[in-house]
Structures are given as structure tokens and as C-alpha cells.
């Protein structure tokens, strides 16, 4: 009995490696957290400088519609109204999500309910490829195909929210679709069987049970898609026209937070108001990203199917 006692009490090799492993992984996560914090700090410090250092009024920043950081208006206040960009960003994001959702759900249902085999063989890789296509390429195609197409169909320059929406639609479709598929797949098989066994057709089953059970998952996918659309820069910038104007229709040039940010950052001097104002836009983006994430969490928590 005593050797057991003794051996039980000696610290094992395993216990030591445990400590080491835990420290190692803790180090990694700490580093990531540090990076995240650093980014937050940089963006926030620069973005907030607009308000604290340059004394721009936050309310005006969010509600004014003229963006001319280098100029001053009649009252000597810098013209930093981000409203057009905010509206533009939301516009393209919501429209793209609105367009992508039915397609994503349709494709998702096709892949999980109608023809899982073909879904797996064809649609799945298609989605993965769509995700893989770099955004420069999307921008390039948007510029050379969608903008002229919009121009021919609707007139105008072709640049605008519509073109941006089209590009973003394709870009977020795979994200939304793959999350929709995940959500549909995670609806337990027995829901379907139960419904069919109660005398429902496949469509009734899908519509009344499967989709309903998958709704939180699908919504999460849509929000994720929106987050991606909101943060997308290059492709949108290439097709939206980048006019800091309040958008009043879909086919005149507009701008998004990201497009103004990418465009302007190189032409401003660090520390200047113009530069800080751009960082404020970045901060706004960051906050939006945070909001989307919280939204996803909320949906996830509310809609969690136990088991």
C-alpha cells in the first residue's frame, strides 16, 4: 500500500508537461489578445482624436452629410459629416444581404433536403470556390462587367449602390450559404422523419420544421455575411463610385466607410484632422463589427436548440 501512496503523491512527468502546455497555449492566446487590444487601441486613439483633439462634434460627425475634412464650413468647423458613408455602407450591406438570403436559403435547402448528393458534389465546391476568390478579382469583374451592365440597363455612370450590391451579393453568398447549410444540417434528422411520419410533404417539412429549427443558424449566417459586406473594401471601392453624397437612388455614385477610408488614407498626413477623421471611420467600422458580433451572439443564444 505504501508504494502506491508514495507514487500517488509524487508529481508526475505528465503533471509537469501539463503546466508547460497550459502556459504555452496561454501565451498564444495572450499574444492574440494583445494584438487585438493593440488594434483597438490604435484605432480608438486615432479615431477618437477627431473628437477630443480636433474637437469635432460627434453628433455632427454622424449626421452631417458633407465630407471635406480639409475644408472648413462657414462657421469654421471642418466638414466631416460621415452620414453619406454610413448610409452607403448600410445600404449596400442590407441590400446585399436581402438579395443573398433567399438565394442562400434556396441553395441550402437544395443541398440538404432536395439533392444532398449533388449538393455535396457540386454546390459545396462551388461555394468554397466563391469564398476563395480574392476580393480584388471580384472588384475587377465588378468594374469590367457589372458597372457597364448597370450603365447599359439603367443609364448613368453605372457606379453606385446597385453595382456594389451586386458584387457584395456574390461575395457574401457563399458565407451565408455555407452557414445556412450548416444550420440546416444541424437540424437533427429525426425532425424530418417525425414530420414526414406525420404525413407532411418534403416541402411542408422543410418549410414548417427544418427552416424554423434552423432560423437562428441562418440568421447568424446572414449577420456574418453582413459583417463581411460591411467591412469589404477593395471590391466595393472599385464599383461604388466613391462620392460622398447622400445616396438617393441605387445607380448614382455613393460611398461606404471602407471606400472613403482606403481612398483617403494615402492622401492625408498623419496626425492631421483629415487623417484622424478617416481613423474615426475605421473606429466606426470596428464598432459595427462589434455590433454584428454581439448580434450573432444574441441570435445564437436566443435560438439555441438544446441538445
Amino acid at each position: 500500500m505504501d508504494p502506491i501512496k508514495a507514487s500517488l503523491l509524487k508529481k508526475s512527468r505528465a503533471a509537469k508537461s501539463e503546466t508547460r502546455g497550459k502556459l504555452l497555449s496561454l501565451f498564444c492566446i495572450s499574444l492574440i489578445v494583445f494584438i487585438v487590444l493593440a488594434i483597438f487601441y490604435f484605432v480608438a486613439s486615432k479615431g477618437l482624436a477627431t473628437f477630443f483633439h480636433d474637437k469635432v462634434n460627434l453628433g455632427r460627425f454622424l449626421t452631417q452629410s458633407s465630407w471635406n475634412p480639409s475644408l472648413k464650413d462657414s462657421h469654421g468647423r471642418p466638414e466631416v459629416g460621415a452620414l453619406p458613408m454610413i448610409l452607403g455602407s448600410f445600404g449596400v450591406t442590407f441590400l446585399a444581404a436581402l438579395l443573398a438570403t433567399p438565394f442562400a436559403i434556396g441553395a441550402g435547402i437544395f443541398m440538404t433536403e432536395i439533392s444532398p448528393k449533388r449538393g455535396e458534389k457540386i454546390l459545396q465546391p462551388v461555394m468554397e470556390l466563391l469564398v476563395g476568390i480574392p476580393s480584388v478579382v471580384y472588384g475587377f469583374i465588378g468594374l469590367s462587367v457589372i458597372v457597364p451592365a448597370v450603365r447599359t440597363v439603367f443609364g448613368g455612370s453605372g457606379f453606385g449602390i446597385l453595382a456594389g450590391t451586386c458584387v457584395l451579393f456574390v461575395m457574401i453568398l457563399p458565407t451565408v450559404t455555407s452557414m445556412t447549410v450548416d444550420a440546416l444540417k444541424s437540424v437533427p434528422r429525426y425532425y424530418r422523419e417525425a414530420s414526414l411520419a406525420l404525413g407532411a410533404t418534403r416541402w411542408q417539412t422543410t418549410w414548417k420544421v427544418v427552416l424554423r429549427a434552423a432560423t437562428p443558424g441562418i440568421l447568424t449566417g446572414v449577420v456574418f455575411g453582413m459583417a463581411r459586406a460591411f467591412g469589404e473594401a477593395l471590391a466595393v471601392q472599385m464599383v461604388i463610385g466613391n462620392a460622398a453624397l447622400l445616396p438617393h437612388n441605387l445607380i448614382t455614385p455613393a460611398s461606404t466607410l471602407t471606400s472613403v477610408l482606403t481612398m483617403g488614407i494615402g492622401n492625408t498626413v498623419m496626425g492631421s484632422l483629415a487623417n484622424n477623421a478617416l481613423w474615426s471611420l475605421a473606429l466606426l467600422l470596428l464598432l459595427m463589427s462589434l455590433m454584428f458580433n454581439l448580434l450573432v451572439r444574441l441570435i445564437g443564444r436566443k435560438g439555441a436548440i438544446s441538445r
Partner: protein
Amino acid sequence: GCQSKQNGQSVTAVGSSALQPLIEALAEEYSAQHSGQFINVQGGGSGTGLSQIQEGAVQMGNSDLFAEEKAGIKADQLVDHKVAVVGITPVVNKQLGVKNLTLTQLAQIFSGEITNWKQVGGPNQAVVIINRAQGSGTRTTFEQWVMKKRKTKPAQEQDSTGMVRSIVANTPGAISYLAFSYVDKTVATLKLDGIAPTDANVVKNAWPIWSYEHVYTKGQPTGLTKKFLAYVLSDEVQNKQVGKMGYIPVSQMQVERSVTGTITKVK
């Protein structure tokens, strides 16, 4: 960075997209002639060039503007090297057919007072303004000499010259402006008050929309930077490559423009 001799040397120039092609070409040529010595050239815009040279992040900051003109730049720390002059011309879509505008008309177009080409004798076609990004050297120069104190109408913006050119080329009724070095067959240039956008007119200041191309260094250049700038400013380069690339050697200018815009004839 300053690498040791046998591992080569490199310096970086950043900034103005208007100047970028010239410096890039010269850098390539210089490297070809001096093995192990590299000049990296980045675009990014005049703002970037000025702010980075000020930060000391790079060895050369390219700009279309005088450092003094840019808010937030402490010009006294920087040394200006005017390496060329470039003219800027309004360009329109080729299908438009308008060949000539007065300077006022041009200003009215960009300020939004003229919205249809028929107001200036062109076809019944809405004007589509394409601007460069705010703060870009080209735009600042254009606005300084065309718009005077007029306010530019918010309109479509692009942050790169190439993009502006292709949009003008593809969009009916489009008008924008380009550095001479970017002008090609896809777009049509406009005469202003009957004066054509040519180097000859720039040299005489008959064509008023032009700017110096500056390379700024922080303090006096040293080492490779110094050698490279010497190379750029050498007569051989100034007389051959600069012209060929669509720029005008500073030495050929018959006028000189100061930071404040005052023109003096060169003796």
C-alpha cells in the same frame, strides 16, 4: 534600411502617383546600372509621401505639392528636390466631341453649375464628374488653378489615376483630369481657352495647370539617396528620360512658381 555593402543597399521612395512612373522607371534603370543598389518606389499619394518622409519612415517622399501646402507638414525639416514638372489636363470621354472649354466653363462644370454638356455646346449629355481623391496632389493642383476659390461639387472620386482614366474612357459624358504622363488614346484631352495641353504651353505657363514634382528628403540626402537624386537630376536623365515619360525637365521651364503661386519668369 541600411544594409551592409556586400548585401546590397536599398532606399525607398513613397508618394505621389503622378510622379511614380518616372521615379519607378529611373529607379529600375539605376539599379540596372548599379548592382546591389535598390530604390523601392511606392505610390500612395502625395500625402503619404510627405507624411512618411516627415516620420522618417522612408528616404524619399514624392509629392506634387509643396510641403508647405500640406497641412500638418513641417516643411522646414524637409529638403525639396524638384525633379520635374508635370502638366495636368482635363480629359473627357472620347465620344463626347467637346474639344474646347473656357477655364470658367471648366470651373463651372466641376462646381456643379454646368450639369449638361449642351450648356457648353456639346451634345445633350449629363456631365459625369470623376474626381481624384481628396488631398491627392493632382486634385489639389487642379483645384488650385482651375477652381480658384470655387467649391468642388461632391462627386465620384477615385484614388488612382489609372482608374480615373479608365472610367473616363468608359463612361459617356465623363470628365476628369490627368497628369500628362497618364494621358493615352483612350481619353480625349480638352483645350482651355483654345490652348492645347502641351509641354510647350506648360513651359511658357500658357497652360496654367501644372505642378512641380518634388522629391523631399529629411535633411540633406546622404548615401544612396544622394547618389540616386544626383542621378535623377543629372542632365542626361533630365533631358532624355524625363521628357520621354511625359514630364518636363525643370530646367526647361521658362517660368518659376513659388510656394504661394507667384509666377516669375526665369532669366
